[in-house]
Structure formats: C-alpha cells, structure tokens
C-alpha cells in the first residue's frame, strides 16, 4: 500500500508496511494463565515470550526475536531511540521528577548483568512497540501501520509493565545498573502517556505503580485516586481501585482521609460490594484506634 504525502515542491512516496496481528485462542489461554498464576521472576520471561509469539503472527513477523535478526536492536535502543526520546526525557526529569535518562548505556561484562541488560532491551522493544520498528524501517523510507487485535497487545503490555516494576527494576537496582533502570523507567512513563491516552483510569493506575516505584508518595496517591474517580461503580475494577487508594491512605496513616473515603464509598458503591466495604470500614477504625492507643 502506498500513500502520497502532498508536498509543494516534490511528491514523496512513503511505503507503508501493514502489520496485522492476530491473537489466537492459544495466545488468550496463555495470557489468562499468566494473569492468574503465582507471579514470580520468571513471569516476565513468560510475558516476553507471549508478546514475541503474538507479534510474529503478522505476515511480516515483528517479534523481538525476529526483528533482532534484521536490525541491530542494541544500537537502536542505545542510540536511535534514545536520541528520539531525549528531549522529552529532559522535560520530564525537570517537571515530573523522573530520573534523568542516561547519555549512554555501558557495555556489560558479567553474565548476570548481560542477562538483565538483554531483558531491559526486550522490555523497551515490547513497551515502545511499534516505535522502534518504525525508527528502524523509516531509515529505508518506510512507515508502519499496525492493525488487528490491538486490545490484546495493550493487555500484554499492561501485564509486562507490572512485571517490569515488580521484578526487573528491583534487579537492576540491586545490580547498580542505573542506566538501564532510568531508561526503562522513562520508557514506562512514555508508554502510559502514549498507549493509554484513551483510558485515563488505567493510565493513572499504571502511573501510580511507577510513582510508587520512584517513592513519590503524593503522586502515587493522587494517581490512585484519579484511577478510582475515573472508574464507574458499575465496572468490575471499581472496588479494587477503591481498596488500592484506601490502602495507600492507610500506609501513610491518613486515617481521617481514609474514614471520609470509606464513608463516601458506602454511598456510591453497588449493593454487591457493601459487605466488603463494611470490612474495609471496620479495618479503618480498628487500625486508627490502635494507632491512637
């Protein structure tokens, strides 16, 4: 398929590579198994494997494993992608207190660090998809259009996002791999802004996870509250979002706010949730009294 871009001086032809992704029943089954399993360090590899298989369903396979045979992903991540995102990184580190992205990522030599470095590369590829692919192909004058089961792609990305914050970032922290750690934090932030712009509730929820990881407690609570407020009482995730925000208030011993919140919750929630809300209310008063004693 070819698109002509109007240009007063010259007609430029941009070739568009159409990538159609199809989530099979097997992919969905694996997704559900990962989702409901006991999450561990290995779950991140399971997420990568599922993403890779899913992205390879296209006529032009675009999974990490296939693409890394065609373009130097290492180079694209450490140079091209970083140059592309760098101005945004400067803005965000100044305004949202994100850590500064690295100017370069050192060559890793130990087996353990190489393994973590490679996991970071795959995480960056999967969460910025299809940006890295576009950057790689645009050099050849091509564009990329992704169609098909994009909702499924977003769901795997969301799960991958959680696994990265649960397991990869702590490992990068322990290994003092600050360059990879700061880079992936930045990519996670951009992912929430770009991929979830049409779902502000989940966007705020993912941001809360990121701010929690960064130890920015106030932003963590604000994003959890936003995620809750943007969820209708009719939705399945309403009470879980409510409990997440309430837990954050209790962590900070903000008992008066927590009491006010559960009182409001009683008025807005559906009948089916009242039993759980009663438990949350009792727990609020119990823990507040225990603290007062």
């Amino acid at each position, binding site marked *: 398929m070819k698109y002509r871009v109007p240009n007063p001086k010259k007609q430029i032809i941009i070739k568009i590579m159409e990538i159609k992704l199809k*989530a099979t*029943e097997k992919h*969905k*089954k694996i997704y*559900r*198994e990962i*989702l*409901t399993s006991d*999450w561990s360090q290995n779950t991140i590899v399971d997420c990568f494997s599922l993403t890779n298989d899913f992205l390879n369903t296209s006529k032009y396979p675009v999974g990490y494993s296939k693409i890394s045979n065609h373009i130097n992903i290492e180079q694209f991540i450490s140079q091209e992608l970083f140059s592309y995102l760098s101005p945004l990184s400067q803005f965000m580190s100044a305004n949202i207190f994100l850590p500064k992205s690295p100017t370069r990522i050192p060559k890793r030599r130990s087996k353990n660090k190489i393994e973590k470095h490679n996991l970071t590369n795959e995480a960056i590829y999967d969460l910025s998809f299809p940006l890295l692919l576009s950057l790689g192909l645009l050099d050849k004058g091509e564009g990329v259009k992704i169609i098909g*089961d994009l*909702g*499924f792609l*977003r*769901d795997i990305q*969301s*799960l991958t996002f*959680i696994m990265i914050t*649960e397991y990869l970032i702590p490992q990068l922290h322990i290994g003092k791999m600050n360059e990879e750690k700061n880079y992936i934090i930045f990519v996670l932030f951009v992912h929430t802004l770009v991929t979830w712009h049409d*779902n502000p*509730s*989940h966007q705020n*929820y993912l941001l809360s*996870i990121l701010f*929690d990881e960064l130890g920015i407690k106030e932003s963590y609570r604000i994003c959890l509250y936003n995620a809750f407020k943007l969820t*209708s009482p*009719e*939705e*399945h*995730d309403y*009470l*879980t*979002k409510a*409990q*997440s925000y309430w*837990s954050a208030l*209790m*962590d900070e011993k903000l008992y008066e706010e927590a009491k006010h919140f559960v009182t409001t919750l009683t008025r807005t929630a559906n009948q089916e949730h009242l039993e*759980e809300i009663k*438990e*949350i209310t009792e*727990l609020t008063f119990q*823990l507040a009294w225990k603290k007062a004693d």
Partner: protein
Amino acid sequence: MSSTIGGEDEHHDLSTKDDLEKNLRAEARKLMKQKSKRNKLLKKANEISRTKSKKADHH
C-alpha cells in the same frame, strides 16, 4: 460489553468469576502491613477485573 475471555474452558473463564478478585482483595486486606505483597495481589485483581470491564476492547 463484557469480555468473552475464556471460551469453553470453564477453568479459565474469567468473565463470570468475580470471586477471583474478591478473594485477592480479601487476602490483600489481611496483609495491610506488608505493602509489597498486598499491592501485588491488588495489581492482579485489577488486571483481571480490567479485562472484564466495559472499557476492554479485546478477546
């Protein structure tokens, strides 16, 4: 629009099982002092619920 996740495999049909999230939330309430473990349970409950939500556009 609820999700059709699960198909005929009853064990993996998440669409009608709010009990999964309810149990995860209950477990999380027991772990109020263990923020990391508690939040992991809530994140899982949230992801399961979210895929059933009206906003979900897949499966």
